[in-house]
Every structure is written in C-alpha cells, then in structure tokens.
C-alpha cells in the first residue's frame, strides 16, 4: 500500500506542476544507500516514465569513445549539490561520494531510438558500484539485470551494413572486468583529456561540477578526426580507450604484459614485436601482436577483426567488428617502419 500511495503522490506532484517551484533532483538517499534497486526509477535520475535524464545531470561526450557494437551512448554525471570533483594533475577526476555516472545505450534506428540499457556507476562510501539496467518494453522504466542478458537488436552501421546481433548487456562482474584497478571498481571513461562538454558548457551551473588543476590537460585526439591528431596519435587514443582499462599493469589483462595506456611508451610491452602470451587461438598463427609495417601479420588486428569468443578482443562488449577502428589501426601499423623492432 505504501508503494501505491507513493506512486499516487508522485503523480499528483507532477500534475500540479511542482517542478516550477524547484527543479527535481535525484534521490540521494537511494544513491548513497546500500541497495541495488530493482527499478532504475528508484534513483530518480530520469524524468518519470521516460529515459530522459533530469536537467540537473551534466551531459558529456568523449573525444574517443569505447566501441560497443555501434551503440549510441548518452552520458551524464550527477554529483550531490555542493559537491564537486577536483581534476587531478593527471586528468583523473576525484569524484565525491554520491556521484552517479549514467550511460544509456541504444541505436537511432532501433526501437525508435530508445535506449536498450542504462548502466550506472555509483560512488558510494564503500566504493564504486556498477549496476546494469535493461529498459522495459514500454520504455517507461528499466529493470536491474544483475546477471546481464542478451538482447536481440537490429541496426545499421555507418557504412550502411545491417547488423542483427544478440547484443550483450554485461553482468555486474563483467562491468568490473573492465572497470577494475587493483581489484577495485573505478570509472574509466571520464578523464579530463577525453571528456567533451561542448553540449553543456554554456549552462549556468557548469562550474559547480569540476575544479581544474593549474596545469593544462591536453585533449586526447578524436580517433576519427584527422584534424585532431596524427594517425599514430589517434590509433593510440583508440587503444587507450578501447583496451587499456584491462591492458595495464593493474588491470584485468595485467598478466598479458601488453600495456596500452595513453601514457605507455610504444615498445615491446605496447605490442611492438611482442610474442603472444596466453593468447591461445588469439595469436592466429602469427608471431607478434604488432609486426611493424605488416598489419596482416599483427595479431592485435586479427583479434580486433574476429567475432570468435576464443579470439576476439575485447573479450566483452563486442558482437560486431568495428571495421573503421580496425582500419585506423591497420593504417598506423602499415606506416610503421619495418625495422622498428
């Protein structure tokens, strides 16, 4: 009965135009609590009955995003009133307790462009918590899918090709596989050099969210914009964003010895002349992850272009080949002098 009463009260509140009095805010008690609500609406991050984030959230984009089966992602950050995230000298924001990073995934040409899933990364006092929600058929709310799920979707990629895939919504553990540093969950996308606030910089409360360090943080190139960087720089940005959350000394792929962070030197541990380690079929019968000048004999390319779970990289989050991304990496490797290793 309490639930019904609350729902009625909420409906009345909306109907009476209460939002004119004050802008609605997310439910900080739920955000800060210890629960994993069964419904996304419990957090109050979206306009009731829609997949549209509250205006109080700060939308942002990324210069170079992680490829997720050509999904269009809508990202937004919530921080409690009065709190902000200082950006460290290395460009990593230090998010306060109560922060929620919201990311919705969908395709413009699937189901009217409505999102298929929304992932939350919540900064609680105990640490970051990752929760995946799948939108209900009526698009009004989303349900917790802690064990993930495969959702059949059909969409067209930029080259016009049609794809029908079993899109994988990750489970809670898979969220952590990528969002893991020293075994703890951490955000990976929002780094100062890669965040793009073009859409929200003009708003009056923009300055409340971040405080910036004295040093300038150079923007990371846009992987698909030649004006933003050289082929090599864009390729490295692509690898940093798509691979380095696992491929770093404290990530899920630490044992591979292949480290692809934006700051890593381009040497054997970056794949140049590196023989396979625990790659199994992923080596494709090739000797090196990156054979300079020879993308066809670089198994890094082979793994990016494969859909076989025993070969494909990344291991989660991809049921299609990102041919445009692979093309960039091919060009980068082809342009390397052959004697680079």
């Amino acid at each position, binding site marked *: 009965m*309490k*639930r019904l009463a*609350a729902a009625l009260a*909420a409906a009345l509140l909306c109907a009476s135009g209460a939002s004119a009095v004050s802008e*609605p805010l*997310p*439910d900080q*008690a*739920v955000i800060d*609590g*210890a*629960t*994993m*609500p*069964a419904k996304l*609406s*419990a*957090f*109050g991050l979206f306009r009731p009955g829609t997949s549209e984030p509250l205006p109080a959230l700060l939308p942002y984009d990324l210069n170079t995003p992680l490829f997720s089966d050509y999904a269009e992602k809508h990202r937004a950050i919530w921080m409690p009133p009065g709190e902000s995230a200082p950006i460290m000298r290395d460009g990593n924001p230090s998010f306060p307790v109560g922060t929620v990073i919201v990311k919705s995934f969908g395709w413009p040409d699937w189901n009217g462009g409505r999102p298929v899933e929304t992932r939350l990364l919540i900064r609680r006092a105990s640490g970051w918590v990752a929760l995946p929600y799948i939108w209900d058929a009526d698009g009004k709310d989303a349900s917790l899918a*802690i*064990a*993930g799920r*495969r959702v059949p979707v059909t969409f067209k990629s930029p080259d016009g090709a049609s794809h029908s895939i*079993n899109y*994988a919504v990750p*489970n*809670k*553990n*898979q969220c*952590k*596989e990528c969002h893991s540093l020293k*075994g703890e969950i951490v955000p990976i996308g929002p780094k100062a050099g890669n965040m793009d606030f073009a859409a929200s910089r003009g708003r009056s409360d923009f300055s409340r969210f971040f405080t910036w360090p004295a040093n300038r943080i150079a923007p990371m190139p846009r992987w698909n914009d030649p004006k933003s960087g050289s082929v090599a720089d864009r390729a490295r940005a692509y690898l940093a964003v798509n691979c380095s959350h696992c491929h770093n*000394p404290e990530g*899920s792929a*630490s*044992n591979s010895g292949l480290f692809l962070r934006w700051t890593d030197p381009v*040497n*054997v*541990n970056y794949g140049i*002349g*590196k*023989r*396979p*380690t*625990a*790659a*199994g*079929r*992923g*080596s*494709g*019968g*090739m*000797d*090196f992850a990156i054979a300079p000048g020879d993308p066809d004999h670089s198994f890094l390319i082979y793994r990016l272009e494969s859909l076989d*779970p*025993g070969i494909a990289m990344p*291991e*989660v989050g991809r*049921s299609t080949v990102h041919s445009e991304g692979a093309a960039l990496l091919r060009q980068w490797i082809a342009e390397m002098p052959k004697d680079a290793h």
Partner: protein
Amino acid sequence: MRFHGLRHAATLCILAAIAANPASAKTISVSAGTPDANEKLQEALILAEPGDTVELGAGTWKLTDGLSLDVNNVTVRGAGAGEGGSILDFSGQQGAGEGLLVTSDDVFLTGFAVLNTKGDGIKSKGADRIVYYRLRVEWTAGPKATNGAYGVYPVESTDVLIDSVFVRGASDAGIYVGQSKNIVVRDSIAQENVAGIEIENSFDADVHDNIATRNTGGILVFDLPSLPQQGGHNVFENVVNDNSTPNFAPKGNIVASVPTGTGVLVMANRNVEIFDNVFDLNGTANVMIVGYRYDHKDPNYQPLPKQIVVRGNQHGKAGYAPAFDGADQIAAALGGSLPPVLWDGAGDAVVLDDVGVLSLGLPDIKTPRSEAKPQPANLKGTPPARLPEIKLPESMEAKVK
C-alpha cells in the same frame, strides 16, 4: 522525488533479511532445467555472499556466455564431473574469453565439468587460495586447433591447489599455472593436450602424482621474458608417457615450438628438480632442458636454465622419433635414436639418472640451432640443496579431505 525510499521498502526488507545474518552460510541451488539457466546461474554467482555454496544441479547446462565469480570464500559444487554429473556445456558460447572466470579469494570449485569452451575453460586471476578439485575440463572432439587454449588456468595467484582434475584437448596447456606462487598440482590427468601441465613464470610449485599422457609435451616448466615474474619447482612421482600427439597449437604461441614426444621440458628456469617420475614412450626425449632462444628485450630476463636436477627417474623407451629440426641426422649418427635426456648445452644441469644425455653443444643461446654440435654429455655432479616441499594453508587442504 523523495518517495523512492518508501516505494522500495519491499526490496529493502528482502535485502535486509539477507544481510541480517551474514555469518550463516547458505546454499543457493540452481537447476540446469530452467529456461534461463545461464542468467540464473550467473545471478547466483553474483548474489552469493562469503561462506555461501552455489550448488549446481545434475544435468547438462547449455550456456551461451561465460560465467564469473567475484565473491570471496564461495564454494561452487556440482553433482559430479562425469556422466550424470553437472555438465556446463559451452558448445554454443557467444561471448567471454573463458567458461568460468574467478577473480576472488578462497574459492573452492568441485564436482562439475566444463566442456567445449571457445577460449579457456576455467580461469582464475588474482584468486588466492583457490582449490580446483574433482573437475573435468574437456574439448570432447579431442585434439583440434580450434579448441580453447587452457583448460584449468590460475594466474597471478598465491596458494593454488589443483587436485584430481581431468583435462583433455587444450590447444595450449591442459593445466596451466602462470605468474603465481606456492602451487600444488597433484593426482590429476592431462591427456591429449598440446602441453599436459605447464608451470610458467611462477615461483615454488610441486607437480606430483599426475598422469601426463598422449599430449605433445607432458609437463612444461617455462620462463618467458617481458612478464612480471620468473623463478623453484619440484616435478616428482608423475607418470609421463606416450606423449605422441602431433602439436596442434596455433603457430606463434610458445607451445607450438614443443616437439611431439616430449616428456618434461624445462625452458629458462632455475631450481627445478625432476625426480622419481616414470617415463615411457616419449619419442623425442623424456627430459629436455633448454634456454630461451628467441629475441627478447627484457633486461631482467634470465634466458638460461640454472640449477636443474634430474634424479631417481625410471626411463622407459625414449628418443626413437625425435621431432625437432635436424633430429633425424643426429639420431642416425647415434645409431637411430636419441638418449632419454636432451640438453641444449646452455646454463647448467645435474643429471644423476643412469641414462644417456645428449648435449646439442649450444652454450650461447644466441647461436642458432642449425649450428648444433651434438655430443654425449656427462652431467653427473653434486646437486644443489633440495628444494623444500610446498605447504599450502590448512584451510585449503581441509577442503579436499
């Protein structure tokens, strides 16, 4: 927007009830028969709390996605690893690099089978004190290049016990322990893999009372460059025989270089003792000791085998079908076959077994194998001090008693 807490009072109550007594371990039973068995099983593995047991019902589970466990001190127990047990069948796998991934400590896996994964079978990473017991990981069509790489695959872990597991068909290593320390692999069978059992870039392993048969190479002890750790292992009382399966590893991987018919292979390691094993029918060699002969750029890497001891082993037939480049001519010169122990001449080793040892005469690892100067070698000498027996924490041994 302030009502949500109330709206979810019911959910909160349930969670509160579960959290109320975390000390009381519970059993979460999951059945293979549910239509969404994959999701239900994964959900159980996520919602389990420390101390809990996730119980897999008997039957065949048709799984489309890899499973994962990230909760400390959880037991995953099935109804058995053989016919009629709990069979996790990944033939239709669409995603994930392995069948089951464990990333938490004090986990006990027992009584189930993992079949036909696209990548690795069971992987545990950074999972200290893990116990693998009475498990089967198998690619049921036998040796095929399209099989997954590793069967049982603990990596970056301290205290690892692999006991009474059966692994067949891995296109790399059946039982692979990498970048770990304090390891025991015992009473297990590795059959028809490229490498039966492989200990790589690890410290302190005892590998004993196993059967490594019909692999390309039975037991491998390797150190590779550009990886975080390298370094004393005991390999003893194993039966290592008939390792005659042609190498089916994808080229480029280090195990693709293992000659068919290898019993125990030590590459670039130190403090390895191979004793009291029973060797037979290993066509290339019963024991092979070599340096790492590829280019590398790791200044900390030690490419030579050092302080390797071979003693007290029984040697059956070996060296009658040596399968490395140039071996035919060497064998012909020696009257048709090679002696049971083969050393490339790099580093140092003591061989006390009363059998022939062939050195390839290549002390400098930069010298190509084509310049081998094969000659009989006498490696009898005073061995270094015995390595201590590996002791695992009592909590681990208690699980398999």
